């Protein structure tokens, strides 16, 4: 997402990351740490899962931890340089990505079908450019 930020801002939008926990990790990411530069966008936390419920994002069921697709996503993320930090929060929460207008209208939504299921950034940019 960091790499896509200039294109997202050029499309008149900004980014907010929301995690189930933890505030100290969100603060570290925003500030930058070690060799990691600051994220460049805001992070919040949702310990009560309010946003996840509002967007209808699902939960990872027990059998889904055994599916090849989930582990392919992990390997793919590792190949892109992502490294697992300290796990906090809710590992069973499925992620999602939403485009929300200032009047709170949900313009576009991707509900993940499993862990690591994020849409291509081109789809997000299309949503920003064509549904404004």
């Amino acid at each position, binding site marked *: *997402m960091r790499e896509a930020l200039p294109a*997202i801002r050029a499309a*008149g*939008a*900004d*980014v*907010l*990351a*929301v*995690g*189930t*926990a*933890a*505030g*100290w*990790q*969100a*603060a570290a*990411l*925003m500030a930058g740490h070690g060799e990691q530069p600051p994220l460049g966008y*805001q*992070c*919040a*936390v*949702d*310990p*009560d899962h*309010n*946003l996840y419920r*509002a*967007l*209808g994002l699902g939960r990872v069921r027990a059998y889904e931890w055994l599916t090849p697709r989930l582990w392919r996503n992990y390997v793919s993320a590792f190949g892109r340089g992502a490294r*697992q*930090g*300290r*796990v*906090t*929060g*809710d590992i069973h*929460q*499925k*992620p*999602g*990505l*939403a*485009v*929300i*207008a*200032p*009047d*709170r*209208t*949900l*313009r576009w*939504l991707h509900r993940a079908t499993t*862990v690591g299921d*994020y849409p291509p950034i081109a789809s*997000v940019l299309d949503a*920003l450019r064509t549904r*404004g």
Partner: protein
Amino acid sequence: MIQPGDRLPPVELVTASGAAVELGAFLEQTLVVVAIRYYG
């Protein structure tokens, strides 16, 4: 279940510093909201 075109209800979040904040406080412009599982 909410669908594109619907309006989100008020959603209470928490800032990185621990303060309660409503999603609308971030909505000065269109937002790409990435709901991840956790930071780490």
